């Protein structure tokens, strides 16, 4: 295995222009959906992307897929800069990256048979020749994701949510991609089905050596599948760490708040648990993000610096990076005091 990561994203920015008024078309301002995100993804690993609704998770995924215009920054695959590829040059990329969607009902064309849905990437990229080889390949994919071969002539509306998600996964696998971007693949499913799909994704990864960028809003789900986790808030990365490190030692106040908000299915533990009352309010608008640290209006540790200066993402321990003034080396003495007060 080489040291160049499979996917590398540097200082990615995606800003959407808001429509202005009729008289002043340029007055709209812009939504800073993703505002300076950097990360890398090694072959065979799963990186989780978590955060609340609207923090820019899907937009990050779309930008990596080159499905949304990139305002600034660079995206590299295997060392190759793909940020500015256009038209035909994008085609090979479309095979190397595939996506699994959140909504198992909208993601499949209702007028197509499962056979044609799963096989579409094969046709588009001319990966097999002949009807027989085509059918065989689709049946193999169906078996891989736990669908019965005799379902291949059916239409999507004849399947339940979990089965449709399996169809979507089979379609994503068809092109033998390097990276699969999973945009909340289980959040529309019932708990019992969620677990089936999570296990399936894990098994497939082991079997086929897949690389996932796993977008989710549920930290508990992410824990079961990701090697590393990146926490986003309002278009910024606030913390990145190995999964275990993040769960045992969350450092950013937002990560801590997010964790304390997740219910634990155990009445005894719950009766002892304090729901952190200090994280009041909701995510501010990305059109008009707060100055300084984006989290400061909701943060109980916020100081005057936080509202003025944006903190940078820096490593605190090996592989664990956090973007918070509490961990800035300049204020080390201060931060020690504060960290002590958190603990």
């Amino acid at each position, binding site marked *: 295995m080489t040291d160049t990561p499979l996917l590398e994203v540097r200082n990615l920015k995606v800003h959407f222009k808001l429509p202005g008024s009729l008289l002043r078309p340029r007055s709209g301002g812009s939504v800073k959906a993703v505002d300076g995100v950097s990360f890398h993804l090694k072959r065979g690993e799963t990186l989780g992307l978590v955060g609340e*609704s609207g923090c820019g998770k899907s937009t990050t995924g779309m930008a990596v897929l080159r499905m949304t215009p990139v305002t600034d920054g660079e995206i590299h695959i295997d060392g190759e800069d793909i940020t500015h590829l256009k038209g035909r040059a994008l085609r090979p990329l479309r095979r190397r990256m595939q996506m699994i969607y959140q909504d198992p009902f909208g*993601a*499949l064309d*209702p*007028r*197509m048979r499962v056979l044609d849905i799963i096989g579409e990437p094969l046709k588009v990229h001319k990966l097999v020749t002949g009807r027989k080889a085509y059918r065989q390949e689709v049946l193999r994919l169906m078996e891989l994701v736990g669908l019965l071969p005799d379902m291949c002539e059916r239409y999507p509306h004849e399947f339940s949510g979990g089965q449709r998600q399996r169809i979507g996964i089979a379609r994503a696998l068809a092109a033998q991609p390097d990276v699969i971007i999973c945009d909340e693949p289980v959040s529309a499913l019932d708990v019992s089905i969620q677990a089936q799909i999570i296990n399936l994704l894990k098994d497939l990864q082991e079997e086929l050596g897949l690389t996932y960028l796993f977008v989710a*809003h549920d930290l508990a789900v992410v824990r079961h599948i990701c090697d590393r986790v990146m926490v986003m808030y309002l278009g910024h990365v606030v913390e990145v760490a190995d999964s275990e490190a993040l769960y045992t030692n969350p450092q950013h106040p937002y990560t801590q708040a997010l964790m304390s908000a997740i219910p634990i299915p155990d009445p005894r533990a719950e009766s002892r648990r304090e729901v952190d009352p200090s994280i009041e309010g909701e995510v501010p*608008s*990305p059109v008009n993000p707060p100055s300084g640290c984006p989290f400061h209006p909701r943060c109980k540790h916020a100081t005057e610096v936080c509202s003025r200066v944006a903190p940078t993402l820096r490593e605190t321990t090996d592989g664990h990076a956090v973007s918070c003034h509490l961990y800035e080396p300049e204020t080390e003495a201060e931060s020690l005091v504060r960290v002590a007060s958190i603990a």
Partner: protein
Amino acid sequence: MTTETAPAALTTRPPTTPPLRERLGDNKVLGFIGRLIVQRPMGAFGAAICIVLLLTGVFADVIAPEGYNAINPIDRLKPPSAEYWLGTDQLGRDLFTRIVHGAQLSVIVAFAATSLSIVISAVIGITSGYFGGRFDMASQRVVDGWMCFPDLIILIVAVSVLGPGTWQVILILGLLFGISGSRIVRSSVLSVKQNIYIHAAQSMGASTLRILVMHILPNVMAPIIVLFTTRLAAVILAESGLSFLGLGIPPPAPSWGGMLSLDGRSYMFQAPWLAIVPGVALTVAVFGINMFGDALRDMLDPRMKGVGSGRYVAAVRRDRPSSRQSTGGTAQ
């Protein structure tokens, strides 16, 4: 401790996938006809009228073998009788023969003009709806401009330029209805375009042509079919109207509209059947096509399709509907 209560059996069981539902008979066409009769009897009735019309048109020469222009001066303006089922006109031509052959003419004109109009609507609607942006803007302004002119003026101008005749009528009606129908196709393309499966096809690298043909077109088929049936009736009426004004297919061709206007009006009191018969034929045909079209529209609604899909509709967890726009409006 609660996690430990799982018996090993819970994991070792192979996935059981129960049969989803009995399929409603393998033959889709038969199933569709069955549902049409049970759920929309009026629609089935309309469909029967359409079929009769179609068959009459196709087999006109078999049903009424004498020529529609066979003149029989002795039997002029005869009322309906055993010999002349629907009577004769002022030249002694058998009205039944003329109505039957008129059906042929109507069927040809209606299907040709409607097909042309549908192709035009689909091409304009799909490209303009899918590509959007400036192209959409431009093409829609052209459509707007076209639709600003009253149909009648366009017709009169076109006929005076092209002259009367069957193919001219087909061309003009096809263009007229095609351009106005593109609006309907375009609006359904706009909604189909929003679907994630379109995004999926784009992100997998499918070519634009493939997306248009394999994904967009099949999903706007329902409105297109409905457009087809409603336009069919409208074209028959329009063709009669044109003939009535003398702008349509010139005599002696047995166009229903022409028969109604030329002979029917002149001999309204002496021989009322000359007006009544083509009038009734028109009314019945238009009624039948409209009824069938209405039923088709309802039956093609996916919610009416296949009993048993209901559960899966309820099974989507509308977990996080795009509350994203709303987060924008929050003021702390």
